[in-house]
């Protein structure tokens, strides 16, 4: 394939769904037209652990317009575990768990009736908080693809003992909630044994394949339709309890659609979150600042109902040289909602800790933090010894340093003041794996002068609809306007989910292979009705190379000398992420990740009240995400990287690498501004006033 010229406007078409989105006519799940719907409102547990001893539904049922009140006593038995075993027993595993649901003629009546359901409980003692040296820590199930086993190379303790310079620091991160703007919603229609779901998700086939065994359905008779999704950031990667409850309700009322949208408050316990954690990082260098020992131990919250673990400490496996290395991930299972993926799960928190510790290490060595990183750049992936398919971190750091004006930086912390503001700059590296998932199926057809491309991919705001159309046009060697792409439904052939920044790589590979097969079968001038369907093959190079996207994050931070308020007037991210398919949408994705990173650094904190086990600040007034006024200049740049190994397009994922390292860059800059090293997110004002 030909290379893309990133600044050529012809290579950066506007979003194909843009006109519908700016008008508001693009239909999301809850907006799909259905006839005569009823509305479902969930009833949630008011205790953190115990059992429901009684549910008085009489007042709710007496309300005109109420159709059914579902509880564990009358709900159908299904074949599900964990958070999807909805209404299957009286047991309560976390506060906010679904313990009932009201089906009514209008949303107002359903909500009112849900409030009339009287529940009595037998309360059991619960645990919903944990500490840095928690005795309940345990090893996670390493059969999960999200977790690798402990790594212990060389002799870390002896190397640290012999090291010239060392740091031993612990960084804490709070619960963070995905909070896509579109609340999770599903509309279920059950008719003649056929289930149609209009659902907000990151993969229609994932939803189908999860529901089929739960309800014992024929997969051919389950249809999931999701043309537009209002963000997900991981929380829509797997279906949650409300989907099961809605299907249960729909099966009680054949022919009548059931609509269920979570409230913003319900999303906090019901759709997952980034688990809080502590990460201890011990680093040691020789006299030249070369790392001789790296230890990264992560401890994170999980749920007793179902384990969720991510490898935050894994961030330190392949980042820098170090002959001695110990990596461990531990979890503490509590009586709390089940965490899930949130943008760059593992890397976001793990690289925050590592890249903050590296800043401290560079300072301990008396080195510039960029030169320190360059000095510790590995030639091959340190833990596996595999070559990198491409690794241009140093180029990103150098390019960013030039653009940011790093050379003029005075390294001393706490010496720049402009009026009431202390000013500093910071840097951090970013890394995120490049996944290309095989097995997606794409169809290419030709009719009426257009090439029809079908694949059940998801555009959750990434721009996949546009990027995949570009890839198809390029593979077929036709203009963009000659391609009609269809995605977001099980009406199209099966595709992997939008997760792990794998979408464009995985679906694009399937489209390229299908397009090539179509041309081989039907030639340059296909007959009307020609069609080819292929399933993408695994990359023969997979496993031979370490494949990652990289970036360098720069931040300018101002901390108010009297109030401790932290402002970020400038962010710059320079990335090396293979071929950029669409410069316009790619720039937005990088900037969006960086903006979420700023939000993570300064604002986001799900505050758990250990007495009751719930998140206290469960709305946008209490759980602040970055707003317009919080975000200053966000500059995005990338290098022209050619990686022949990752996939046929040469692309790496760009959805997540943008958030990685931002919180560290901001924290490092805040330290440079003030001389105060805050090791706990978010960087709220009081931490700069009391920790100095």
């Amino acid at each position: 394939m030909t290379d893309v010229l990133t600044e050529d406007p012809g290579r950066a078409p506007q979003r194909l769904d843009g006109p519908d989105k700016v008008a508001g006519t693009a239909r999301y799940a809850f907006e799909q037209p259905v006839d005569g719907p009823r509305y479902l409102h969930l009833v949630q547990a008011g205790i953190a652990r115990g059992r429901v001893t009684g549910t008085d539904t009489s007042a709710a049922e007496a309300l005109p317009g109420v159709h059914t009140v579902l509880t564990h006593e009358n709900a159908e038995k299904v074949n599900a575990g964990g958070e999807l075993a909805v209404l299957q027993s009286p047991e309560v595993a976390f506060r906010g768990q679904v313990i009932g649901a009201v089906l009514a003629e209008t949303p107002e009546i359903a909500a009112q009736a849900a409030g009339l359901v009287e529940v009595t409980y037998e309360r059991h003692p619960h645990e919903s908080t944990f500490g840095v040296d928690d005795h309940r820590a345990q090893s996670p199930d390493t059969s999960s693809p999200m977790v690798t086993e402990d790594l212990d190379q060389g002799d870390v303790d002896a190397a640290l003992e012999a090291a010239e310079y060392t740091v031993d620091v612990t960084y804490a991160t709070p619960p963070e909630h995905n909070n896509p703007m579109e609340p999770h919603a599903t509309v279920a229609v059950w008719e003649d044994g056929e289930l149609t779901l209009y659902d907000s998700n990151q993969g229609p086939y994932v939803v189908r394949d999860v529901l089929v065994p739960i309800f014992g359905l024929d997969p051919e008779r389950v249809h999931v339709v999701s043309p537009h999704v209002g963000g997900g950031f991981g929380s829509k990667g797997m279906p949650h309890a409300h989907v099961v409850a809605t299907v249960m309700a729909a099966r009680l009322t054949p022919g009548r659609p059931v609509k269920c949208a979570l409230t913003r408050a319900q999303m906090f316990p019901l759709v997952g979150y980034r688990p809080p954690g502590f990460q201890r990082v011990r680093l040691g260098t020789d006299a030249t600042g070369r790392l001789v020992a790296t230890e990264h131990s992560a401890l994170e919250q999980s749920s007793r109902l179902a384990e969720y673990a991510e490898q935050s400490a894994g961030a330190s496996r392949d980042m820098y040289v170090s002959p001695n290395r110990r990596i461990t991930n531990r979890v503490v299972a509590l009586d709390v909602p089940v965490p899930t993926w949130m943008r760059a799960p593992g890397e976001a928190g793990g690289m925050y800790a590592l890249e903050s510790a590296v800043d401290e290490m560079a300072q301990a060595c008396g080195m510039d933090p960029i030169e320190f990183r360059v000095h510790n750049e590995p030639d091959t992936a340190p833990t596996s010894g595999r070559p990198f398919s491409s690794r241009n971190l140093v180029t990103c750091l150098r390019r960013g340093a030039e653009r940011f004006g790093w050379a003029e930086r005075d390294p001393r912390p706490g010496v720049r003041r402009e009026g009431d503001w202390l000013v500093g700059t910071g840097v951090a590296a970013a890394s995120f794996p490049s996944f290309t998932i095989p097995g997606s199926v794409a169809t290419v057809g030709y009719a009426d002068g257009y090439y029809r491309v079908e694949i059940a991919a998801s555009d959750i705001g990434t721009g996949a609809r546009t990027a995949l159309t570009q890839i198809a046009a390029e593979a077929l060697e036709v203009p963009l306007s000659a391609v009609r792409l269809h995605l977001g439904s099980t009406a199209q052939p099966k595709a992997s989910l939008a997760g792990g920044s794998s979408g464009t790589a995985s679906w694009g590979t399937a489209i390229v292979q299908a397009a090539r097969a179509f041309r081989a079968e039907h030639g340059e001038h296909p007959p009307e009705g020609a069609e080819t369907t292929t399933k993408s093959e695994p990359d023969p190079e997979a496993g031979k190379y370490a494949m990652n996207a990289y970036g360098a994050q720069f931040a300018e931070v101002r901390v108010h000398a009297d109030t401790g308020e932290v402002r970020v007037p400038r962010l710059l991210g320079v990335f090396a992420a293979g071929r950029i398919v669409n410069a316009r949408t790619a720039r937005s994705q990088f900037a969006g990740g960086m903006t979420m990173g700023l939000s993570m650094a300064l604002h986001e904190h799900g505050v758990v009240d250990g007495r009751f086990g719930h998140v206290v600040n469960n709305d946008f007034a209490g759980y602040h995400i970055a707003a317009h006024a919080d975000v200053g200049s966000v500059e995005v740049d990338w290098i022209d990287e050619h990686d022949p190994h990752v996939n046929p397009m040469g692309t790496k994922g760009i959805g997540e690498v943008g958030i990685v390292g931002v919180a560290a860059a901001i924290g490092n800059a805040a330290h440079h501004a003030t001389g105060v090293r805050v090791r706990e997110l978010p960087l709220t004002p009081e931490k700069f006033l009391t920790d100095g």
Partner: protein
Amino acid sequence: MDAEITLRVDGQRRTLSVDTRTTLLDALRERLGVISPKKGCDHGQCGACTVLLDGRRVTSCLTLAVAQDGAEVTTAEGLSEGDRPHPVQQAFLEHDGFQCGYCTPGQVCSAVGMLDEVKAGWPSHVTENLEEEPDLDDEEIRERMSGNLCRCGAYTNIVSAIREAAE
């Protein structure tokens, strides 16, 4: 309790009976099938439901439908003239001022309402001189648009779009 009301929505006269608890947002979305305003929080905290009500921007989730009998409601859908987007919408397209698109109709309505507020000389929290015409620099745009959250983080592009549309 139900009540009959008449609204003018995007230029069309619509008469309907609503539960007196029904918000303007739910009346538009669930009763009239007008899906352009979005429900992001139902608490007036995210701005996704922003519409122009008699020309002024409001969060329609904090507005009871029954209290707006006779009102003129303009959504982002009504801002475009047929296939031709409003200049603010056109600028959002060119500057890629959105990703998932869910907050977008609210951002667009809010921007249109905000630009009228500036024209009318309304100051904001960051306006230095309350006696002069406000100068719509980026800081002013950010301040005045802060009631509209965007989780995809399209803020910098939204500000560029509004800056261009204002010129």
